[in-house]
């Protein structure tokens, strides 16, 4: 691999719970990835813009407010509109009920990590599923 994996960790929507996002961001960084953490209250548009600008390989989104079914597919949709989805892996995490996961995967979020997932599982998933060659 010629360069480290670049990940954007984002908090879409109005949700302020950022402990999980920050823990993941630090764990990915400790695993040798380059992490851009966006902070709170970003619109899907802002996230997609940042992802393209920063030329990331992964967009990792954390939602604990229950708005995941609206916000996560929106990010994928916008990435597709920018022709960036083919190169960027999109994953999500947070308080997301089991029954919503098939819907989110169908919408193009490759994996959803729910509470209690070790950070190593997420790290391995990213390494194994990168779209960039």
């Amino acid at each position, binding site marked *: 691999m010629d360069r480290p994996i670049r990940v954007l960790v984002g908090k879409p929507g109005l949700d*302020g719970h950022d402990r999980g996002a920050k823990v993941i961001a630090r764990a990915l960084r400790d695993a040798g990835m380059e992490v851009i953490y966006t902070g709170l209250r970003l619109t899907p548009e802002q996230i997609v813009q940042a992802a393209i600008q920063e030329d990331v390989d992964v967009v990792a989104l954390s939602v604990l407010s229950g708005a995941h079914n609206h916000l996560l597919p929106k990010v994928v949709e916008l990435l597709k509109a920018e022709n960036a989805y083919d190169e960027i892996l999109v994953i999500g995490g947070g308080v997301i009920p089991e029954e919503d996961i098939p819907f989110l995967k169908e919408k193009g979020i490759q994996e959803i990590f729910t509470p209690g997932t070790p950070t*190593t599982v997420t790290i391995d998933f990213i390494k194994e599923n990168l779209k960039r060659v």
Partner: protein
Amino acid sequence: MFEKEKLQELKKNQTDWNDNKVEKSLQRFPERKDEFVTGSNQEVDRLYTPTYLEEFDYDQDLGFPGEYPFTRGVQPTMYRGKFWTMRQYAGFATAEESNKRYKYLLEQGQTGLSVAFDLPTQIGYDSDHALSEGEVGKVGVAIDSLKDMEILFDGIPLDKVSTSMTINAPASVLLAMYIAVAEKQGVSSQELRGTIQNDILKEYIARGTYIFPTEPSMRLITDIFEYCSEEVPGWNTISISGYHIREAGSTAVQEVAFTLADGIAYVEAAIKAGLDVDKFAPRLSFFFNAHNDLLEEVAKYRAARRLWAKIMKERFGAKNPKSMQLKFHTQTGGSTLTAQQPDNNIVRVAIQTLAAVLGGTQSLHTNSKDEALALPTEKSVRVALRTQQIVAHESGVAETVDPLAGSYYVESLTNNIEKEAMEYIKKIDDLGGAAEAIDKGFMQKEIMDSAYEYQKQIENGERIVVGMNKFQVKEEPNEGLLKVDPAVGEMQKEKINQLKAERNNEQVEASLSALKDAAKGNKNLMPYILDAVKAYATLGEICGVLREVFGEYQQNVIL
């Protein structure tokens, strides 16, 4: 407390015991690990004896309940008089739905209400704002105008219940709506009892629902202190919150330290605004978390009470004992709940309930077992409420005041937490106070370091969370979780359209423009906000005017 000679003898005996008995025992039965620590990584020794409390002075360190320094509790008889207020935080979807849940909870024996608002309401956006999409009614009830508030409290007599509202940046608007609803019920604001959270500093640190920059936010808060001291004297004007700081990953010590540092900042701001400390300080209240390390948590509440009493007396020269009393609400720890084997959470909540009660809380919310998965169902909320009722009526811990006082371990922990929290407060003072320290990202970074450390301990197995990193089973699918109807957003939009067509729009305009002028000057804003609310200006319109004048807070992103 202990005689010098006796202590010397005891020290010697303890050394003997250690050298002979313990060493021998360790050879045959080694201890489970080399180092024992509390839930927040404070070191725990094998055995606590009076030698840990050499300087202990009953009068100075503990005193009697209801007397300075209030270590043993703020009331003389505590739960022998009446139990703590059982107050379940609730609210979702529309005002109509939430009103039903409140009536159910009151029927089940709950003694106070606690309102959860959705994120758009907490951030001052109406349900029809672009940023509200997908969020309306999700984590709480959607309130766009006085109309919604009238429905929320329909049939609930506001002179009989006390109501706590988890609202911060737009606290003055929601308080004004509450006062207006009471007025329509024929209840004077003088009779109202309740609490608004109104704690913006911890929003910057840990919770995230800020709107305005620090300075105008502090002004809105002190305006409320001033207004309520005359008009709503039974209202707790702020709930200075460690809860979210702890949820964000802090230790117990950091929870106490950062909360009291925020408290100091509010007291300083109010004094600077010209208010008399003994006039507003009795209405300050606090809000803490309850995690699983039972004895550490009990010590935490006792240490916080003692430390605050000293701060108010010594630093701020308060004279009224009520100004020195740290009264607090507790919520059990959301972040301690597991999505795995959710039934186990009932047990965790029971331990946390014991901690809060043994620590002398004034009111308590117990989390429901399904909250790591979704909002709680009616059935799981009932179990959570029953947990409090069992501790109150069956466990016996409420029959005497501060039953753990005098435990060598608990007193020693109490001393340690107070000492370490004080060190943090000194550091924050050196940085220029809480607001400055937040701007510099000091608390945020300290909390994040603790959170990451905790996560690593779980992943390397140093810390066991039952059902999550040990004793796992194949999980059954969770059924019957509460789902908020996605149509709520549309319903609220419809309500706003109707409101705007029906209300007197000239009156709305006039009240908003008066508010804008007042915001540019330095008059107390509460009467202007009340006028706008009564004219049925929406929350988004009112906050929009204030956004124009005050601007918005820019988060300092700290990783």
